[in-house]
Structure formats: structure tokens, C-alpha cells
């Protein structure tokens, strides 16, 4: 598998290897390809579709000027990662997300209406309008937050894994981040710490080949991003993120490895963001041909075709899922639009948790 990886140079934009690869010279036995069951397939499709449709709606709203602030970082094209990994997580498992985090948040079970309200800066949003697109999370679902600083969530996820080990529960911690985050010091510090402390954390690298405009060939010296895990002695794999079945199987293996062995694992999905870094990004750094080539492998449509052709699933079942998603979206949009903006008096709330030290300050200020 090492040879496959070297030949295809998966992490650098070529066709991704089809198999979960293992670290080092003596790779672990090739994982048995566990077929996706029809039931799992439907759930997975539903999850991917919800993310795709949600992101498409957000993009449209932004382009119409109905979302304030910076253009949201959309996940279209990368849906397989969050949908696959989330499938294997329990409610009390933790995730730490990044700036391209809507998919992670939906995958962990967040409701579209409160997410959209947050993105639109409404008081009913998950963060009461304090966070916006880059900071949405429903903490009650184990989501410890997204992040506007590239790579900053990685040590936080390791901290959650430390806490799991300290408390002795069977939870795991998952951290989603992009290929570019692996060039930050926090990645190296955190992966090293997780490895040396033997913590139950799954690092999910969503390698979409670009850090904003800069291609990974110019920023990453190794064939695969996951090669960086070698240096920290942890298990890792690089998987084609456009092949939903492969991605799903790899997620199952990786989550189960972390849960069982209480050790870190780094799972790299080679994927592609179909839109720009944000909506204002004109994508002049890549060709239309390259985009078209990747879009042909769009995971949502591709997996839909597979479900029809190889899983014996009736189209009606998929149409029902699609209709359900549209209803959810329409309700979410109505909810968000009808929700009020936060009242200005709320601006200074929630800086601190209530405590004597801070109450006193408030009294003095008044």
C-alpha cells in the first residue's frame, strides 16, 4: 500500500488510493472491506444530502446579501467526511470543528433551523448570534466548537481526549481540520502530545488540496498529508474522500481503532471543495477543467447512483429522503427569517460565567 500511495501521490491531487493504508514498513493487515448495508447507505445518503442542500442554501442566501459578515466557508464536495465519521459517533463523543464546519455540526446532530439562524445572526441561533458561521456548535451534542483560527482546535480536541482518559469513559474525541492546518505548529504539538500520552482522539484531515489559493504541492513536502503522522508514530490512513463507500469503511475502521485501542489515529480524506474558500474567492488559481474533473466525482450524486445500481434501493426511497430534506430546509429558512436579531442590550452578556469577581466589575461599571 505504501507503493500505491507513492505512485499515485494521492495527497497531491492525483487519484486517491482506494485502500486504507497503514503506517510504517510493516503495514497492518489490509482491513477487510465491510460492505455498507442498504440501511447504512440510506442513512449516509441522507446525512450527505442534508449537508449538500444546507450549504447550497447558505451559498444562495449569502450571494443574495442575506447573510451578514464574512462569506461562509462551505463544505460542498467534502460531505463524505463528516457524514461517514459522524455515523460512527455516539452522542457523548466529542468533536472539534474548523472554519469549514457546517457539515461537522450537522453530522453531529445539530438542527438546521438554529444553525441557519446563527449564520444569519439571529437571537435564536445556537450562539444567540454571537458566533456566526465560523463558531456554530450545539455543545449538548458533544460539539466543542468550530474555529476561525486554522489549526487552533487540534490541541482542544486533544484536551477533550485527555479528559476522557482522565475520567475513564469510553468516549472518543474527533478533530476535523484541513490539509493546511497540518502546517501549523498546533498540529504538530497536539498530535505529538496525543501520541505520547496515548489519548483516544481521531484526527480527520480533510485534504481539499488548497489552503485558500495555495496548492498543497507548494506547502506539503510529503506524498500524503498522513505521512506526517509517521513522525509521531501513530496509525494513519489516506482515503479517497470522493468514494463514499471507501470513506465510510475507513471511518468505521478509524473510529473503532480509537475506541478500542484508546490511541490516536489520523485519517486523511482526499477531497475537493467545489466552491471557493469563501464566496468572494474567484478561484483564479485553478482551472475549470480541474474543477470539472473533480465535480464528475461528486460524492452525493455518485453515491446516489451507487445506491440505485448496486444496493437494490428504489428511487422512491431516495426521493423521500430528498423531499424530507427540502421540508427541513424550508422550515429552517422560515424559522431563521422570522427570528429576531439579538437585542443590543444583550451584547455584553456571556463574556464571563456568573461569578462574584465579575458581578462586582459589572456593578462598578454601572
Amino acid at each position: 500500500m505504501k507503493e500505491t500511495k507513492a505512485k499515485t501521490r494521492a495527497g497531491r491531487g492525483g487519484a486517491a488510493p482506494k485502500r486504507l493504508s497503514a503506517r510504517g514498513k510493516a503495514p497492518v493487515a489490509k482491513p477487510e472491506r465491510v460492505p455498507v448495508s442498504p440501511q447504512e447507505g440510506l442513512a449516509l445518503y441522507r446525512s450527505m444530502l442534508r449537508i449538500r442542500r444546507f450549504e447550497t442554501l447558505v451559498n444562495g442566501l449569502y450571494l443574495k446579501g442575506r447573510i451578514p459578515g464574512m462569506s461562509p466557508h462551505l463544505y460542498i464536495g467534502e460531505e463524505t467526511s463528516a457524514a461517514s465519521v459522524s455515523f460512527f459517533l455516539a452522542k457523548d463523543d466529542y468533536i472539534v470543528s474548523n472554519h469549514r464546519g457546517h457539515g461537522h455540526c450537522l453530522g453531529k446532530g445539530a438542527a438546521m433551523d438554529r444553525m441557519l439562524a446563527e449564520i444569519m445572526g439571529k437571537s435564536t441561533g445556537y450562539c444567540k448570534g454571537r458566533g456566526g458561521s465560523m463558531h456554530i456548535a450545539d455543545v449538548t451534542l458533544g460539539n466543542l466548537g468550530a474555529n476561525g483560527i486554522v489549526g487552533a482546535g487540534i490541541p482542544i480536541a486533544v484536551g477533550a481526549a485527555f479528559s476522557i482518559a482522565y475520567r475513564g469513559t469510553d468516549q472518543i474525541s474527533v478533530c476535523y481540520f484541513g490539509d493546511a492546518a497540518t502546517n501549523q505548529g498546533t498540529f504538530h504539538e497536539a498530535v505529538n502530545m496525543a501520541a505520547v500520552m496515548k489519548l483516544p482522539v481521531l484526527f480527520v484531515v480533510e485534504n481539499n488540496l488548497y489552503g485558500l489559493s495555495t496548492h498543497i504541492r507548494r506547502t506539503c513536502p510529503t506524498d500524503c498529508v498522513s505521512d506526517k503522522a509517521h513522525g509521531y508514530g501513530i496509525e494513519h490512513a489516506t482515503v479517497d474522500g470522493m468514494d463514499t463507500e471507501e470513506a465510510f469503511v475507513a471511518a468505521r475502521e478509524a473510529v473503532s481503532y480509537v475506541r478500542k485501542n484508546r490511541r490516536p489515529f489520523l485519517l486523511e480524506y482526499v477531497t475537493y471543495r467545489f466552491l471557493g474558500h469563501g464566496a468572494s474567492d474567484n478561484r483564479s488559481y485553478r482551472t475549470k477543467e480541474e474543477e470539472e474533473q473533480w465535480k464528475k466525482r461528486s460524492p452525493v450524486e455518485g453515491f446516489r447512483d451507487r445506491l440505485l445500481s448496486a444496493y437494490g434501493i428504489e428511487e422512491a426511497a431516495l426521493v423521500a429522503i430528498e423531499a424530507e430534506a427540502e421540508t427541513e430546509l424550508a422550515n429552517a429558512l422560515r424559522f431563521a427569517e422570522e427570528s429576531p436579531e439579538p437585542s443590543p442590550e444583550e451584547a455584553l452578556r456571556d463574556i464571563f460565567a456568573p461569578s462574584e469577581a465579575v458581578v462586582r466589575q459589572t456593578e462598578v461599571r454601572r
Partner: protein
Amino acid sequence: MSRMTYREAIRLALREEMKRDERVFIIGEDVGKFGGAMAVTKGLFDEFGAKRLVDTPISESAIIGAALGSALTGLIPVAEIMFIDFMAVCMDQIVNQVAKIRYMLGGQVQVPLVIRTQGGAGKGYAAQHSQSLESWFCHIPGLIVVMPSSPRDARGLLKSAIREPNPVLFIEHKLLYNVEGDVPEAEELIPLGRAEVKRPGKDVTIVAHSLQVLKALEAAGSLAKDHGIEAEVIDLRTVAPMDETVILASVKKTGKLVTVEEGYENHGIGAEVVSRVTAKGFGWLDAEPVRVAFPNCPVPFAKSLETALLPSPAKIIAAVLSIANPAG
């Protein structure tokens, strides 16, 4: 009362809180068996073991990030950063993550997290191991900054910091570790956010924190003895949020204000004190406020240079005299 050093008082607070609550643990570089670079955690490893005294790689960002992740998921971390100068290495985690996560999440989380570190000059440690960078953190919404000047305050404030549901930066001074003082036998919690008058006086208000409280008290003694000036010395104790009430009440009485700090003068703690006093007590002032601070210069190595730039009782006395006996 028992007599103990500032270092022992901090260790006592850690021990008491770790005994009280199993969620409390210490994470940092060399904090375990070795006992910490400043020997503060010495002995705790034997008592609490490796689970609760967690040695880390030299990775300041990961230390703070890991502490934050733990604080969000049910633990109460006390992270140690060996020198405050090293905080520059993990500023993102402190400023953009720890301080803001509660607000960004609309109040969904609490961050019961203490970061212990130490700063200050006077030992010839040069520019990267001697700074007093507290004003950086006081500037950031969401952080509480505590800087005790005595063993009693250190113990009582650290215990409160560990029980605080918000992130606290607990900044010790390397020259205070061996200073002795009386600490009550019984458990004592000193509330955060409250300054204390360490010496009452009617003629001039001196506001200081950390080691400089001791320098101010020394100066106040000389001022009384040699010049008949009774200085009131206020120890901020919690630098942010700042306890304006005690400062304003004092200036109302004395009409004169001198601030003392070891941090760089520009944009410093003294500037904040002066600003608040002039905004809220302008009419009470009968002289211009004076700041005694470290000049805007990196901390030099050679003893003669370092001493020349540091605040001292003599400089505090000169500052007081400059407004206490105005010419003409």
C-alpha cells in the same frame, strides 16, 4: 497562623484544592516528579501521582489547548507556563480560544481554567525571561488576571481562582517565591476582583501589584519616617477586573496618585489606573498622577543595567515627592 513562603503557600492552595476536588489537575512542563522549574509543585507528585501531575512536551500551545479541552469537558485544569515570556508562544490559545469561547458559543460553556505562570525581573535573566506582560491579558475580554504579593493572598486567591468558573491567569513573581509571611491555618478563600489597602495613609495613594507592593510599602515607610508623608498603599491583587472602588475612595481622600508596576510603562496597568481615576475622580486630584514603571526597553542582562531600569523604593519616593512638594 503559620509562617511559610509564597512558594509554599501556592503549593498549599494546590494541595488543598486537589484534595477537595478530584477534577483538579496540574498540567505543564516539568511539573511532576521534578516539581516545577520554580519548585512550586514539589512533593505533589508523591501525593497525587502522575494522573494529576501531568508532565508535557515543551508545547505551550498544546498545553493551553489541552487545558481548555479538559475544562470544557468536566475537569478543572491548572496549567503551568514556566515563564510569562513563553505566553507569547501560546497567545492564540489564550486570547482567541480560552478567553472567547464562552462568548462565541453564546454562553453554552464555562471555562474553569487556571493558568499559573511567573514573571518579573531582578535576577539577571535578560529580555526573554524577565518580563511583566500582565497588561496584554488585562486587555482581553474574558480573562481574569490575578497577581498576589503575599503568601496569604497567594494561597487565598489561588483557591478562589481554582473555584472560579472563568479563566484565570495567576501570575506569580519569581522574586516573591522565598518571601515569608503568615498564612491562616484554617481554609481561607480570598475573593477575586478585590483590591486591598496594605497600608493606610492620608497624603498620597500608591497603587501597585505583585512584588512592587513590597517596594511601595518600603517606600511608604521611608516617606513617613523621613518626610512625614503618610502614603496609602493599595495592592490591586486582581489586576483585571480592576477594583476601582478602593482606588477611587483612596484618591478622594489623598488627592494624589502614584502607580507602580514592573511592566513596560506604555499602555500599562498604571495607564489604566490613571485613566480611570482621572475619568471618575478628576475633581479630587490636586496634582498630576505619576507612573513608576519599567521604561519601554527590553530587560537588560547586566545587573547594573537591569537595576537602573527597574522600579525601586527610591524611584517611588522620588515620584511621591515630585507631587507632594510641588515647587512654588
